[in-house]
């Protein structure tokens, strides 16, 4: 019987996968392999994407081998004039898994084109090399069972196959040589040896048929063995020019061998190869697990030349170094991460006599800057953006170091000779210095012309601190500078400072006094930080955000303008004319938010304010006309309790972070540290001796990452630098070609909504949140039509894996009236939960940024909760053993979405199901109910909210709970929950990994029918229909669920079914580590397989589907799968002739 039947076609829209292959084409292009997708970047000017194409279908790209233009240059690191120039076609052999394919790069890097069919070889390909000395170029392929294949590239015909007599599995291999006859295969074995043999030696002349093994009659013998490693050999590299072979192993070392010339006349190289060096330096596997790329100085004593840190926790998956071309002394280094990111560095070689020497500036240890002056230096500052250093001593002497020598600039009188504070600033291109003393005096002068200075009496007593604050109105206008001097009794005097020039006397300063600020009373009543922020509420308004020694953040407003004129100039003049009014108190105070040790800095970036303190936190502040609120708190790493500043990463300003990307600068015991809160690692450290010292950090010019800078600091009464200041040019420049996602596996994904570009509805972005093993929650925007993925925000508050997410939509708060429709922004409440029984809640506001022309995300922390928080606060916890289980939250469902609070059900690994309430306004998380009914790890929960029921699953069974009682009892005192479920059905043999519930109103009866789909570790998919009736016997209402029908597909996947999502009322999409995404439909006669697609997301752990805007209900949905990476798919319904499921004969045709 044939009739039309629909089936589902899936199509990939976007993919983020580990970058497993990288290769440079000269200095001009970089090729990357991400899953099966080959991408071409051009490196000229600022690097950018040129073309991208799926070339290996279901194989991952592991290698890219450009065809050398002429002979004798494969594996040759010499600068090569014969390399194809960019106006010719470059042929590439792309391989991975058992696949191999030829691809051409069009002239001038215009694009990529397929040059042959995908060849599927009999065994896993480890290396491919172009054999240029053959009459016409052939391909030599080394495969995993210690054998090599000779291939005719265009046809894919196997000309010869040769195995080694030492039949074994290889983890890595290299095929070296220009012809089959002379080529040498280096194999990295499982048993710690490197074996060298010649495939062409035995198979010579014997042609053989493709795929058969019959021809390998006599196997080649191993000619050399390199012993020394104590683990599997993961990776190999051969350098022809010096006859060196490098091997990386599971033993975490790299060994460098002298093997001499391999292939050609050299045969298998020198008789007795020697091990030149053993290099240990990596924290984890050399395969790149520690995410660091070490440039070893080959010539040195095996020192690490430079560490290039690059990828989020998962580590590096591929690496490439470009050949230096003639006349250039720089080359590119690229790394590809497990996070899907690609980083690129330009490395300048310092010496040209050795091709090898990727020598980067010698890491001299700390340097004395040879300060010789009067007194002990107390303050250091860097001026001019370069390596010029200014210092002020406790004897009131200001000196400057320029070009290696110190000179005195200014020396204060007796008043300055026991205590002083100093700050410098650049006003209209002139560096101005302010020095304050013990008696309330402040000397302000241009560094260039100290004589043009002015003395101010700011206070009766000691000047505690000085601050230079720029006051600007609007983003573009040039601001004016103010000097703030914090004196006695909490009085902060303020002046505007301008630099003027006079023909006779030269530079002089124009100062105007402003109304002082008054700090709130406390023991240590002085100012530690100040900044101005412009807000736009009706008209532009300048607000002052200050921090004090008590740890409070304060908001000040300038005096009410006396006239309605808004010009700053006018306003200032008026003030000075009117005279000084009474000091202005703060309009809002966050008392002691940064702890007793005080606020250390406040700064502003793109209208957002950031504060740091000696409590180890950065606070992101939301400003209002007269209120100051903490939007988010970022913690530095454990033990880094003294933060000094945030340093903004400039390159990301154009990026999509609503909050600017920044590093935290501070002290971690005796070190000065730059901590990257997103990558969660120290990117710079200098042993300066710890806190309580003045410092200045000078980034290298052109280094966007800020990681390669120099710290100037005071230690034991002298000025030091973390390294030599002599070489002022930078050696390394980092670029991010593609930003990575989570470094490790993604455990969950959830879609928040869609955003289109204002005025261009064709540019649509889907906004997703993901949570992963790297303990972060990411907010992403994906543009399906282009496959672009942007990270909008990274939230790093979890201390362990993030396993589950939930979201409830909210109207845009604040400007609900006009906000939503005008700029299409939307707001969501997002919950994340996972390891160490931690639950977090955030309010996200997704909007459009006109400036960057990209979506943005603003994150507001609402609440956080951990079950064992009480334990953490116990003093003596180090002495006792914590007996409670280390509970993980496995899954989460929203049970009730109320205005005041949201109720969540959490499946817990300790065998419990818990219900929490989260209040957005109260910022509180409360445990309402828990049940240990199951005594097993609870794996999933889903809720069916209208009737207050939810299902949860454990060990193969699904239980249905009636939570009406919990939801009805408003106050927390009740614990009125049920003690047993109202229905329990065994469904799977082992764990139920996924559970989704959908509901339908029954047409005839008023009863609700719920449809519950489950996916199990046994690979089975089950769908149950359950009728839910209210049983009204005497006073109590009770639920009476009734199982109506139950269908199963026992082996829906050949691996565990790990994630399930509803596509439409009777359709589901399932995902599994078997890397298939399947679509299922429930019909009257059972569950039908509607379609499937191979996905490159391994270890699939989460899936989410939603209707595509504009598509009809039946068809058109998006499905996103996450695991080791993420893939977005599009579904489409098509009609096809009916094939009866299970009828094999028919299917075969």
């Amino acid at each position, binding site marked *: 019987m044939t009739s039309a039947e629909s089936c589902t076609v899936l199509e990939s829209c976007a993919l983020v996968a580990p970058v497993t292959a990288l290769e440079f084409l000269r200095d001009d292009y970089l090729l990357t392999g991400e899953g099966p997708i080959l991408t071409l970047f051009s490196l000229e000017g600022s690097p950018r994407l040129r073309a991208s194409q799926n070339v290996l279908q279901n194989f991952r790209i592991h290698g890219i081998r450009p065809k050398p233009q002429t002979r004798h240059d494969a594996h040759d690191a010499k600068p090569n004039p014969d390399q194809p120039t960019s106006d010719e076609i470059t042929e590439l052999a792309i391989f991975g898994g058992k696949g191999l394919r030829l691809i051409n790069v069009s002239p001038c890097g215009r694009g990529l084109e397929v040059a042959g069919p995908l060849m599927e070889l009999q065994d896993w390909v480890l290396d491919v090399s172009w054999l240029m000395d053959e009459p016409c170029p052939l391909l030599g392929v080394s495969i995993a069972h210690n054998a090599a294949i000779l291939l005719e590239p265009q046809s894919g015909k196997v000309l010869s196959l040769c195995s080694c007599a030492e039949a074994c599995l290889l983890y890595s291999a290299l095929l070296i040589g220009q012809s089959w006859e002379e080529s040498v295969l280096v194999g990295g074995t499982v048993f710690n040896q490197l074996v060298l043999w010649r495939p062409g030696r035995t198979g010579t002349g014997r042609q053989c048929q493709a795929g058969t093994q019959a021809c390998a009659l006599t196997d080649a013998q191993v000619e050399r063995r390199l012993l020394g490693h104590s683990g599997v050999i993961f990776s190999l590299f051969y350098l022809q020019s010096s006859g060196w072979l490098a091997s990386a192993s599971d033993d975490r*070392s790299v060994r460098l061998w002298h093997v001499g010339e391999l292939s050609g006349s050299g045969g298998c190289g020198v008789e007795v190869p020697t091990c030149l060096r053993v290099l240990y330096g990596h924290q984890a596997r050399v395969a790149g697990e520690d995410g660091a790329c070490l440039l070893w100085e080959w010539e040195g004593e*095996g020192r690490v030349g430079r560490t290039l840190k690059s990828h989020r926790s998962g580590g590096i998956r591929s690496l490439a170094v470009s050949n230096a071309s003639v006349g250039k002394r720089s080359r590119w280094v690229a790394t590809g991460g497990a996070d899907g990111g690609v980083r690129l560095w330009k490395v300048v070689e310092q010496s040209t006599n050795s091709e090898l020497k990727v020598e980067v500036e010698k890491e001299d240890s700390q340097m004395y800057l040879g300060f010789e002056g009067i007194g002990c230096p107390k303050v250091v500052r860097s001026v001019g953006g370069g390596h010029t250093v200014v210092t002020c001593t406790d004897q009131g002497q200001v000196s400057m170091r320029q070009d290696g020598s110190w000179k005195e600039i200014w020396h204060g009188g007796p008043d300055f000779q026991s205590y002083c504070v100093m700050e410098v600033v650049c006003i209209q291109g002139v560096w101005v210095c302010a020095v304050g003393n013990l008696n309330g005096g402040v000397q302000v002068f241009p560094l260039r012309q100290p004589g043009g200075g002015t003395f101010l009496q700011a206070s009766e007593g000691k000047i505690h601190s000085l601050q230079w604050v720029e006051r600007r109105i609007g983003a573009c206008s040039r601001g004016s500078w103010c000097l703030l001097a914090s004196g006695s009794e909490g009085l902060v005097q303020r002046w505007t400072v301008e630099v003027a020039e006079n023909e006779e006397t030269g530079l002089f300063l124009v100062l105007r006094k402003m109304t002082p600020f008054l700090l709130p009373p406390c023991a240590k009543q002085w100012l530690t930080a100040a900044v101005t922020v412009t807000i736009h509420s009706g008209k532009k308004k300048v607000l002052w955000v200050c921090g004090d020694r008590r740890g409070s953040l304060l908001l000040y407003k300038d005096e009410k303008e006396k006239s309605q004129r808004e010009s700053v100039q006018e306003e200032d003049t008026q003030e000075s004319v009117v005279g000084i009014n009474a000091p202005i108190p703060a309009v809002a105070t966050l008392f002691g938010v940064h702890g007793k040790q005080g606020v250390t800095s406040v700064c502003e970036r793109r209208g957002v304010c950031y504060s740091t303190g000696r409590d180890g936190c950065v606070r992101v502040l939301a400003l209002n006309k007269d209120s100051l609120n903490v939007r988010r708190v970022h913690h530095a790493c454990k033990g880094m309790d003294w933060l000094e500043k945030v340093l903004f990463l400039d390159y990301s300003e154009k990026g999509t972070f609503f909050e600017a990307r920044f590093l935290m600068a501070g002290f971690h015991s005796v070190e000065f540290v730059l901590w990257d809160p997103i990558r969660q690692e120290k990117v710079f450290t200098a042993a300066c001796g710890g806190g309580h010292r003045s410092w200045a950090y000078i980034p290298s010019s052109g280094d966007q990452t800020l990681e390669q800078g120099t710290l100037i600091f005071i230690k034991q009464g002298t000025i030091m630098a973390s390294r030599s200041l002599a070489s002022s040019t930078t050696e390394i420049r980092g670029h991010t070609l593609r930003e990575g996602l989570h470094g490790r596996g993604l455990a969950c994904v959830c879609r928040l909504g869609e955003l289109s570009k204002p005025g261009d509805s064709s540019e649509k972005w889907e906004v997703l949140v993901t949570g992963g093993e790297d303990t972060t929650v990411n907010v992403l925007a994906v543009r399906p039509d282009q496959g672009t993925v942007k990270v909008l925000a990274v939230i790093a508050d979890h201390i362990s894996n993030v396993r589950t997410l939930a979201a409830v939509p909210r109207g845009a708060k604040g400007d609900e009236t006009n906000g939503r429709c005008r700029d299409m922004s939307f707001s969501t409440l997002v919950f994340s939960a996972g390891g160490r029984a931690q639950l977090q809640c955030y309010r996200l506001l997704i909007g459009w940024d006109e400036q960057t022309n990209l979506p943005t995300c603003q994150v507001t922390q609402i609440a956080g909760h951990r079950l064992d928080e009480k334990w953490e606060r116990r003093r003596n916890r180090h002495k006792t053993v914590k007996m409670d289980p280390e509970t993980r939250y496995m899954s989460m469902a929203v049970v009730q979405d109320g205005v005041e609070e949201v109720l969540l059900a959490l499946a817990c690994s300790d065998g419990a199901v818990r219900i929490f309430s989260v209040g957005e306004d109260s910022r509180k998380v409360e445990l309402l109910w828990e049940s240990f009914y199951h005594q097993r790890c609870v794996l999933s929960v889903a809720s069916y909210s209208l009737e207050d029921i939810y299902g949860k699953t454990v060990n193969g069974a699904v239980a249905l709970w009636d939570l009406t009682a919990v939801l009805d009892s408003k106050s927390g005192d009740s614990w009125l929950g049920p003690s047993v479920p109202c229905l329990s059905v065994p469904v799977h043999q082992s764990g139920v990994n996924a559970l989704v519930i959908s509901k339908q109103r029954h047409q005839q009866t008023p009863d609700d029918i719920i449809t519950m789909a489950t996916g199990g570790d046994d690979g089975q998919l089950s769908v149950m229909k359950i009728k839910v009736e209210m049983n009204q016997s005497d006073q109590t209402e009770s639920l009476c669920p009734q199982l109506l029908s139950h269908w199963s597909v026992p082996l829906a996947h050949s691996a565990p079914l790990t994630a399930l999502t509803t596509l439409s009322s009777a359709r589901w999409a399932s995902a599994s580590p078997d890397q298939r995404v399947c679509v299922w439909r429930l019909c009257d006669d059972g569950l039908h397989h509607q379609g499937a697609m191979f996905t490159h997301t391994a270890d699939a752990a989460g899936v989410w589907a939603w209707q595509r805007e504009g598509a009809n209900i039946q068809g058109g949905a998006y499905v996103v799968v996450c695991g080791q990476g993420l893939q977005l798919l599009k579904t489409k319904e098509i009609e096809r002739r009916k094939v009866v499921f299970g009828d094999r004969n028919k299917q075969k045709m």
Partner: protein
Amino acid sequence: MGRSSKDKRDIYYRLAKEEGWRARSAFKLLQLDEEFNLFKGVSRAVDLCAAPGSWSQVLSRKLRGKESNEDVKIVAVDLQAMAPLPGVTQIQGDITKISTAQEIIRHFEGQSADLVVCDGAPDVTGLHDVDEYIQAQLLLAALNITTHVLKPGGNFVAKIFRGKDVTLLYSQLKIFFSSVTCAKPRSSRNSSIEAFVVCQNYSPPEGYVPNMSNPLLDHSYDVDFNQLEGPNRIIVPFLACGDLSAFDSDRTYPLQLDSSKEYQYLPPTQPPIRPPYQKACHLRRNNLLAKEDSASVLPDDALSAMSLDSKQETDTAASGSR
């Protein structure tokens, strides 16, 4: 985190120490046996990829019984050295290597084995597809050895990763065994892709000649059959095994399991002998890894000088998952 944290995270790890097993894997074999009666009538067995040796312990205890039975022969093979066990012959070698395979065959002196087990797992490269491929090759290497030593009607049990190409392995195994089941012991975590194929009744195709010098290669997808993206057609039944009342490997338990017994920390039964990363860990622990300002060249035999009895816990970086 203290040393008890692993006890808390992993109940079977803790039980293994309490019962004297060298690894928690012992429970997997015990639970497989509960379901399939694997050891019945078995006196000659091969344990491939055996280190640190908990499966060999199980075999030794189960096959030899109380009195040391002389007929029992257990050959254990691994890349790594293993502490000796009564009645177990050890071979250190790569099971994918022809010479190792030949050595195993020699040990049986023409006799055949009743049971072959393989718990092989690759040294993880971190590249998902590579790990899966190597795992499959370990299984096929074990199968190849099996075809040489297993008696007709005998059983073969091997670890398998249920990944993207697992059906290809199933179809290969079905050629040699009349019954193939994918089994998941309850002690194996729900979250891991690990499972075990229990292949019963060895019955090679007629005329099949085992050939050691050619590796058994994995099958390819049948394109006409649309095996890659069509519905799952290679049906290998799934069976969860082990007592339902057994501990749940995914659950986190409190340290105090029952009120009658006080929790006590126990050291691991048998720490690994010379793991490959030992030297690197030693260097790291003593802050000797090369940094940007110090050299890392140490004489190769620096290792021999370090005391082996110092902290021999498995390295946290290598095994540490939160």
